[in-house]
């Protein structure tokens, strides 16, 4: 097994202390992902390093951090993709979240936004396989139409969004407006609105989107869509909400 000695520069902060960086060098397999490197630091070097992880395959959204300044999920990022072989790999917590300690950020306000949107985590699945969030094109894997078994009215799957917070970190408006619902919140509102038939709930969701901290705060930086590891396209969803809001205003003006 080919092993690498990788130098990591990790952001450290404990309450009451000055924030700074610690450097560690870990020996890991060449095929390892960044989460394995962080785990190696925790197991063998410094057990007080606080970081998040759970599923190790981009389903839980727990581990999101910044690697060399860019928001990523370390569990699906190979070390060799972010290390040039010489310089240190820098690990920072997400931006725009209060930092609890080291790489762990406070997600309470984030989940308040997601609760306000109340998007159901389970949705109807598309009629085609394969289903992928990446843009890679696997040569001869053409999409194939799937037939439902007799006892099924539909297939279900988890929503693409894993609530990792990466889009919130990448968004410049999140930096400027503390109460901005954010790309994640607004994308969730869009998804929830699409799936609900209850007119009261629709009014409420569109009210949040149209509000002081809703879609009009977005200034089209599009960093959210660029950074999202699950191809949710929050920017596209924000613009879709805008279209709906404008259409409704128009219709109201025309007296409908």
């Amino acid at each position, binding site marked *: *097994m080919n092993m690498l000695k990788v130098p990591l520069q990790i952001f450290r902060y404990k309450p009451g202390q000055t924030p700074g960086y610690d450097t560690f060098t870990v020996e890991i397999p060449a095929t390892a992902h960044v989460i394995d490197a962080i785990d190696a630091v925790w197991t063998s070097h410094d*057990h007080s390093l606080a970081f998040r992880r759970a*599923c190790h395959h981009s389903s839980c959204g727990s581990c999101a951090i910044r690697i060399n300044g860019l928001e990523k999920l370390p569990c699906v990022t190979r070390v060799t993709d972010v290390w040039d072989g010489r310089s240190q790999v820098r690990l920072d917590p997400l931006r725009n979240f209060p930092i609890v300690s080291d790489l*762990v950020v406070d997600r309470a306000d984030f989940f308040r936004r997601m609760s306000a949107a109340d998007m159901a985590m389970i949705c109807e699945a598309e009629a085609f396989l394969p289903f992928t969030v990446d843009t890679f094109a696997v040569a001869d894997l053409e999409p194939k139409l799937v037939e439902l*078994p007799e006892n099924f009215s539909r297939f279900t799957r988890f929503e693409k969004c894993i609530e990792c917070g990466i889009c919130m970190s990448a968004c410049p408006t999140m930096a400027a407006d503390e109460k901005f619902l954010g790309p994640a919140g607004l994308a969730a509102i869009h998804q929830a609105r699409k799936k609900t038939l209850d007119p009261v709930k629709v009014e409420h969701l569109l009210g949040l989107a149209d509000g002081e901290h809703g879609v009009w705060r977005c200034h089209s930086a599009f960093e959210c869509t660029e950074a999202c590891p699950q191809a949710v396209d929050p920017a596209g969803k924000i613009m879709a909400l805008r279209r709906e809001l404008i259409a409704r205003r128009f219709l109201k003006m025309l007296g409908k």
Partner: protein
Amino acid sequence: MPRIDDNWAKREGQNIVPHVLIIGAGSTGSAAAHDLAQRGLRVTVIERGEVAFGTTGRNHCLLHSGGRYCVTDPESGIECIEENMILRKIMPDLLELNDGLFVAITEADLVFKDRFLQGCAACHVPAREISVEHALAVEPFLNPKILAAIQVPDGVFEPFRFCLAFLATAQENGATIRTYSEVTDLLCAGKNVTGVRIRDQHTGKQEALKVDLVVNAAGPWAGEIAAKAGVGVPEIPTAGVMVALDCRLNNLVLNRLNKPSDGDIIVPQRATSVIGTTSWAVENPDLITIPPEHVDRMITQGQQLIPAVKKVPMRAKMAVARPLIARSGIAARELSRTFECFDHERDGTNGFVTITGGKTTTARAMAEKVSDMVCRKLDISAECRTRDTPLCSYRLFFQQRGSRNQSFVGAPGDRSSGRECFR
């Protein structure tokens, strides 16, 4: 908030609610926290990392129908199907419910079919054979050479949110969940356990917590914890490797129609398909290196079920140790996946129980068993009601603990307000 047995309070002569401490916020610890908090006890959960930091986080995400175990391990099979049905009731919004298929690739698999169907019937696992054409229409990437297909009620969950849902409900009922707190020692009076010493990883400070009972739900680390009280737990941490692909190739869970072996399950989830798993005993569950030959074996075995596996890049790989209960003379692959409670009073150490073994699918049943034991030991009569209690929204877990209090008003009647969790 549910009342505990008034007799307990009178007997003790005080109005103090017993305090139980649970070590570990994986599926076992989370479900136990919910059960005990609902029964009215004061609950504290101590976890050294984030929720689902250990075994539960990296599991295969399979909501077992029990089909996998109905022939070789019927006790597990029965547990699985019962809990499968209960979880569909209490956390319906956290499950992909597309069923699963057991498919025969070889003649040997075909021979196994009758035993499989009999085993399912004996364990009350609903199973029906479907035609090969039908199976291929439903799963276009399935190996076209399959000889038989049987449909079972497998499902898919996501382990982090699974734990969060139980913990959020426990928090609503007054439980305290302390993450990033590592148990450094067990406090003892004589041979009995009276509490724990923990180090808060955020502040570096040590703290002593005196409680009425300690529940060891640390999974493969349960032995390490128990050793701090000088007692043993008969478990063998057994690691396994899983490989996640860059796209989802199946709707249903795909299983090999045969006895459990390596790489014979492909679990789809969101936009990935996860092939698993292998099995080898490890000394230290914190130091697991993923053997490259195991990764290769997952790809090779996966291709038997879905040939297109070889064309899809690998997205991630993970390995973690399961806590298997040791039985002398039995090899790792054949060890039962059932669970067990150990009351260490029988070892001379009171105030300490261990719950280990099992799988995430049966976490609620494990919690019921250990909570019954806890209540017996603390002389409380409080019934388990977790079979029928829908869990709170998992998002509440973080919201209840945050440092800031922004208000984003929820929609009228939305479940995230948490009020519906009270029973």
